């Protein structure tokens, strides 16, 4: 034993310290990035978006079992390898994103829980794996994902394409489900934070205090896992885990109406260090609408500026690099302060937004209206609309109408899968062209079904939720110029803007619907039993009497007066009447 030790020691002496590795085994690359984007909103609210990205280089496509984890959380790694998941996207959201007030979010998500998963094509029993996966995920995230079953799962044919590498687009391996009723709270945040390499001990994650995060108008946390390329040629692949958390703090609720924000006010913490495991740790503040500082001022000021085209718009950001000691200044803590000077100015209207409501009266029929707004002044563009409606709203698909500007707008692609009672929901996917500067209305009538009395939720009079419609689209960009001219390109191809940046991908979620179903009085079954039994018993009793009693003619008994008279006569000793 001692001899072996000495041998090892000698080898160490000859190698540079970083390369002490078993020969023949490739070094794995693990990277971790963290980032916070703060965007002051014109309404006086503030939008903070956290992103934590872990990259793990591994050749997962060959299907070999990987079981040694460093920065990537073990629980998620086990889930990926056990269920042969290729891509997993899960989000938990409390509140509804108000697109017209706040603009487009960086990561859109519907209210409640949303889960969509691409499985690898080696999976044979996709439905069984999906069921098991949702159960395991509900354990990991402490959420009611176990309520996902065949009645709320759909296989969209066009709306959800893989976001990572891989050319498999057979939608048999895709499952999509939403739980609009899901309530998101601290117990979902804690396991989410546990997946971070630094936990909530260091770096940006120290700001994630649940008492502040859930005291907000909008809270959304998500986990995205997908395979990505490591380099331009895509020679090596890696798993990417993106954990995002978006929160909008309310002007009146969190800031007591004062248009002044600081990290401490938002999160009740300041920053003192970056996560030591992070390769990059940055804070961006969106100062696009404030180039000369006339709207608000940011302190401490930073000389670092960065430009990026985000959602079709060129934005300017102040950058604070937390890996640099100078960022924290002399007090060794960073407390960003944003103070508004004027409350004027307005926001660029989002080019695409949508809303939805249910119309009609009574408890038998109704109508779902979906409105899609194209605010672009002169460009029309196609959108993909996905609707998943539970089976207990029976859609009359022949009443489906799509109108824009008062005219019939015929969808160029319709994929409709009718529901089966208690088995699967309706799935409606449409490709609709939205004319410029218009509102397109999609209506469809439905009939409410009667549920069995065990199928009602514990509070049936609250109503039943119908998940958000999903609108996915490539929206024409406002900026057409490619700002990134560093890439090698021939001169003749670089004058006109490149095609990729002339439009950008947007996913918009509408409001979930709350529909009332005819609700019985739940003591009814016992009442019905009692009533029926009484009727049966009465009928039976009279029948029984008819069958068993014998009827005889009886002398009518003497009247009351006669009886009294008889008693008197008896007392007198006179014979009765």
């Amino acid at each position: 034993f001692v001899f072996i030790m000495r041998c090892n020691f000698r080898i160490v002496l000859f190698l540079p310290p970083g390369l002490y590795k078993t020969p023949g085994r490739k070094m794995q690359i693990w990277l971790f990035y963290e980032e916070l984007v703060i965007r002051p909103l014109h309404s006086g609210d503030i939008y903070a978006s956290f992103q934590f990205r872990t990259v793990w280089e591994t050749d997962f496509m060959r299907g070999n079992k990987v079981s040694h984890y460093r920065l990537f959380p073990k629980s998620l790694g086990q889930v990926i390898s056990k269920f042969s998941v290729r891509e997993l996207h899960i989000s938990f959201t409390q509140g509804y994103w108000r697109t017209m007030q706040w603009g487009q979010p960086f990561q859109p998500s519907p209210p409640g829980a949303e889960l969509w998963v691409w499985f690898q094509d080696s999976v044979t029993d996709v439905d069984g794996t999906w069921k098991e996966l949702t159960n395991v995920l509900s354990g990991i995230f402490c959420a009611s994902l176990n309520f996902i079953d065949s009645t709320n799962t759909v296989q969209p044919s066009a709306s959800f394409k893989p976001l990572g590498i891989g050319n498999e687009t057979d939608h048999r391996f895709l499952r999509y489900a939403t739980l609009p009723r899901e309530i998101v709270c601290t117990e979902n945040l804690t396991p989410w934070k546990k997946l971070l390499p630094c936990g909530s001990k260091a770096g940006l994650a120290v700001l994630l205090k649940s008492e502040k995060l859930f005291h907000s108008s909008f809270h959304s946390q998500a986990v995205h896992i997908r395979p990505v390329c490591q380099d331009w040629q895509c020679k090596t692949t890696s798993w990417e885990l993106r954990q995002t958390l978006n929160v909008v703090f309310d002007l009146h609720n969190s800031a007591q109406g004062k248009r002044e924000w600081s990290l401490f006010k938002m999160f009740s913490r300041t920053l003192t260090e970056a996560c030591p495991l992070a390769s990059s740790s940055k804070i961006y503040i969106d100062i696009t609408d404030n180039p000369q500082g006339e709207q608000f001022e940011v302190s401490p000021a930073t000389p670092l500026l960065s430009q990026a085209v985000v959602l079709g718009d060129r934005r300017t950001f102040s950058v604070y690099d937390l890996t640099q000691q100078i960022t924290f200044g002399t007090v060794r803590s960073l407390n960003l302060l944003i103070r508004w000077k004027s409350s004027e100015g307005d926001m660029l209207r989002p080019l695409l937004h949508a809303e939805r409501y249910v119309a009609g009266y009574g408890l038998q029929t109704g109508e779902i209206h979906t409105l899609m707004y194209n605010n672009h002044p002169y460009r029309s563009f196609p959108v993909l609309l996905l609707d998943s409606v539970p089976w207990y709203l029976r859609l009359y698909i022949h009443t489906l109408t799509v109108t824009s500007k008062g005219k019939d707008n015929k969808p160029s692609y319709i994929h409709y899968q009718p529901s089966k009672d208690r088995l699967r929901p309706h799935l409606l996917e449409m490709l609709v062209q939205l004319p410029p500067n218009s509102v397109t209305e999609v209506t469809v009538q439905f009939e409410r079904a009667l549920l069995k009395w065990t199928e009602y939720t514990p509070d049936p009079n609250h109503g039943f939720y119908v998940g958000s419609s999903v609108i996915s689209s490539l929206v024409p960009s406002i900026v057409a110029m490619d700002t990134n001219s560093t890439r090698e390109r021939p001169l003749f191809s670089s004058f006109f803007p490149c095609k990729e940046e002339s439009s950008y991908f947007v996913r918009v979620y509408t409001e979930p619907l709350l529909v009332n179903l005819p609700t019985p009085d739940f003591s009814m079954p016992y009442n019905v039993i009692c009533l029926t039994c009484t009727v049966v018993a009465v009928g039976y009793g009279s029948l029984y009497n008819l069958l068993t009693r014998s009827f005889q003619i009886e002398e009518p008994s003497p009247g009351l007066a006669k009886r009294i008279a008889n008693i008197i006569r008896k007392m007198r000793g006179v014979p009765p009447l």
Partner: protein
Amino acid sequence: CLSERRRGQLAALSIAAVVIIVGVPLWWRTTETYRAWLPVNQINELANLQLQLSADVEVVFARGTVTPEQQKKVPTQVVISLCLFCSSPLEADLSLHTLSESPCGSLVVYVIPESSTLLPEDVDVYIGQRRTALLRIGAQMRVGRTLEQLLAHLEPRIKQVLQVMSFSHTDITAALSDRVRLSPGNKESIADSMRAFKSSPGYEITFSLLNPDPKSHRVHWDIEGAVQTYIQPLLTKLAPLANFSIDSQTLYYAMLGVNPRYDSSRSAYTLNSDSLAHVINPVEARLGSNAASSNPVLNFLLYVPDAHHSPLHIHDHKKQEVLSNAFHSPRWGGIMVYNVNGFYGPEAVFPVDININMAKVMGVFLAQLRLLLGVQSSAPPPGFLVAPCSSTGLADWELDRLMWSRTVENVATATTTITSLAQLLDQIGNIVINDNIAQQVSSAVTSLQLAVAELEAGNLGFALQYSKEAILASERAFFDPSLLHLLYFPDDQKFAIYIPLFLPMCVPILLSLLKIVSEARQKRRERQAKKD
């Protein structure tokens, strides 16, 4: 008029008869819960189970241990000459192993002459790495005794060998601890028996590197290579016992639950043995359970103390430093503290890159793994010499020993599960017993009976296989969710629902029956009065 009365009585009687003969059974059948047939008799037989273990022992006499006339009486003529050129018992063991491949669970005892120089002077029994033992024939055995006497002389010693190499009374009682109450007394043996994990068809082994201070230490460990070199051979050997899966993770900012105390005399931090119990809980919250399976998890943690709390030493009850700087928690796993402050000087630039010496770490973890899996390394009786561990870390007979106790434990657990399930189903009549549950129960019972029979026959491999099947089937039956459906539907509610129907229907029937009876009685009395 009389015939009219008679007709009424007949109608009442026939209605009562229809209600009793047709109505009641129909109601009973339609409201009854479905209960498939269970092999109750066989389960009751299992409840008072008599286990009988038998192991094949082959005794081979070497030349010079038996006289020719004794040789004639030995049923099979296997008197061999031990390899002449062997200089050590280890070589003899290996060469003997190639001579006869003994099946799992059996033993071969070679009896060698008193004068043999194969074994050292004071050693009487040598236990090899396979399923063989060398036994020196006693000095008092003079040539010329009968074979019976010779065998009678050898018997207690072979029994002793069997107890070391296969099973002893204490092993089996420990394995049966679920069913048999341990005799109070030997506290040490109870602690020993509770250390190992319960028998399970699979285990998850998780190695976690805890780095509470990533700002100062950048710790690297080649866990993949170490698992391949040190752990995998043992697990391959243990493969017939259970399925093992291994993974590893690195946890940052994972703190121990206790603040170590600074010992200025040693200029080191110390963890006392009585505070070790509080170390695990806060760490366990970070470890994360295994999401993908429900097998028990064996945790092995390597804790690298942060720069401000280094070096850290674990102290035992006598306030002495524990040499390995590690401890284990029964049925949970092990923790090792790995001090790295010696790897860099005081002027080092943080973070420091540190490579962990995996041979040292894995040596500790391997020993803990053996303990937690129940590979017992109790001291052999005097006069015994045990061969050194082979490269796999586990001798064949150690595996056999483990298999014996695991089989008995499996049989005991499955029997307990099945009998308690049968009791439960017997007590609560509302539980629906589906066909698949009945099928699981009967397959568990069949496997149990087969396992017991194979144990009696000494076929250890098959016995283990059947006992595993029994445990799986019994657990599946016991935890089937369909058993819960009607558990909370009491009988009084059922009657409450039917009372509005039954009460108005039964009252007229009962009344008319009473009337008929009283009339009949009166008639008889009148008739008797007439007779008188």
